[in-house]
């Protein structure tokens, strides 16, 4: 209990510093060049490398459900099962799958939250839930 009392403030301060550093890094938006979509700014990068599939899928769902329309997400995961499932869960989160990048250490999946009202031409270009 005493040790907890000593180390807790240190731990919380460290978390706050890390959070601020992360936020500062995020202010500089990353840009990616995706075929068929041109150059896009990544609003948020989510790193799930090392996580199991359930945790990866659930956290992504939580984030995407609350995402702002038009926001682009970059998701890094080395869990092949999760990588395979993510494109299929996007229609339920009102998101679209832009691309999956094969990197040596992980896969990077690019996702965009759809605008509330999509034009018919846009939705026709993406047959639902179909893996190609």
């Amino acid at each position, binding site marked *: 209990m005493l040790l907890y009392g000593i180390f807790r403030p240190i731990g*919380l301060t460290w*978390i*706050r510093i890390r*959070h601020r550093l992360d936020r500062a890094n995020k202010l500089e938006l*990353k*840009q*990616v*060049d*995706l*075929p*068929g*979509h041109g*150059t896009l700014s990544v609003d948020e990068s989510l790193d799930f490398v*090392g*996580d*199991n*599939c*359930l*945790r990866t*899928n*659930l*956290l992504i*769902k*939580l984030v995407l459900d609350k995402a702002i329309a038009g926001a682009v997400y970059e998701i890094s995961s*080395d*869990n*092949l*099962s999760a990588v*395979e*499932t993510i*494109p*299929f*869960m996007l*229609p*339920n989160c009102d998101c*679209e*799958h*832009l*691309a*999956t*990048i*094969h*990197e040596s*250490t992980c896969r*990077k999946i690019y996702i965009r939250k759809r605008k509330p009202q999509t034009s*018919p031409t846009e*939705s*026709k270009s*993406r*047959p*639902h*839930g*179909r*893996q*190609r």
Partner: protein
Amino acid sequence: MSSLSCNTVNASTPPMIVTEPRNVIRAFLVLGFFALVSLSTFVVDHRFIYFSAYLWFGFIYGMSLQYGRFCMASAIRDLFAVGVPRMAVGIMIAVVLYSLISAFVTVAGQSNFHPSPIGLYSVIGGLIFGIGMVYTGGCASGSLYKTGEGSIAALLVVISLSFAQVYVADAGGWLNHLVPTAWVQSTIAKNLPAVITPTDGWYDQFTAGYIWNLSGNTVGKMLGFTNSIAAAFIGNSLLNAILPAAIILAGIYLRWYRKSYLRGNEVQYRGFRTELAGFWSMITASKRTAIAGLVLGVAAGLHMWVMDGLQHRLGISNAGELLSGMGFTSGLSIQDTIFDPGYFYITTQEAQGAAWIVQKLGFNVMDNVFFGLDNGVPNPLLNPVLWMSIALVGGSAVMALLNNEFKLKMPSLEVATWAIFGGILMGIGARVGLGCNIGAFFATVTNGDPSGWLFCLGMTVGGFIGVKFFNWWIERKMAKELAAFDL
């Protein structure tokens, strides 16, 4: 700006996989190792062909499972957690195909399938197994193929699952107090050999005093079909596998797929025609999983055919006879048998492997019904069914290497803890349910045994509970982290 044009793929174009030369070499090394094992053992004694048959079917299972990311945990978890039916659909495709091939094998008189007794134990075992597999992130077969991909967390699942089974099968002591009197009396009445101490051990009395009193049969026989073709194709395949699978698929379509299909495609609704198109779209949504289901179903059916054919050819009914004939009598059960199902199975051989290690550490694991009377504890190098599991890992590794997907992944402490805890639950569930997602579900429902659906029911409920708990855990953790920033 970071440009990712190199090795970049669009969502609408399939990724071009160019296998790295070193991965091709590694894949061939793995393949070469299994080929060498097959050839050299055959040269030593031609009867090792029986072992090699298990080995190569295991290799095919591993390749198919890895290719389709085929996993029962994923099937249940993705439905309840994120509403994705991809894997559940693939598994139902495999069930339908395996049942059709099994019906052919049964009609040809080449089936060595034995139905399990029907009872509540299947539901309870499935429930415990289902909760465990959601925590680990992989079912029994899924953990094996993920081990082949280089996941150490999956290896931890396999290890904890194996040793948990040994504990359940052999533990006595305080667990004896949990045995109902009726089971004790029923066990005593069976006059089992004293060497296996049948009244010492919860699992012994569960098996001898409860399970053996239950009866089970295939649907074809239950319905009294006298014609073997009707029994196999109508009773076992159509009524016990194809119809339930079709009902489950229809349920999945209505609950998880239909709404988003109609919304996503903005189709003009034409009644049943549109529904049928939507249903087909769900079936073909993930070609990869569907193809894996197809290969797995056909291979599992052929496996039974080949093993039964080899048994006839070698004049045996159990691999224990082969081992005795070769002069290897150590580790055989008191009936001179070892575990030899003759079809796709996962957990029992892993328990045997763990039991062999426990025995080498000086513990007696043969004084029980599970190992001492039924399955034996052969040397892992002489356990044909364990050859299948090892080759499954190898097959998965080869497929992963050829797709540049092999990666040695060390788990975080949290992932490792979940893997071990979930693996223990899976081991307990597998023993209580007399098998895992393969032995107690996949291989049973496809051979006309309705007990598999009871295990599936328990596994689904367990999966649902597991997902709900995990969701609560994650949200609680996130809320805690966010609260820390507000301080």
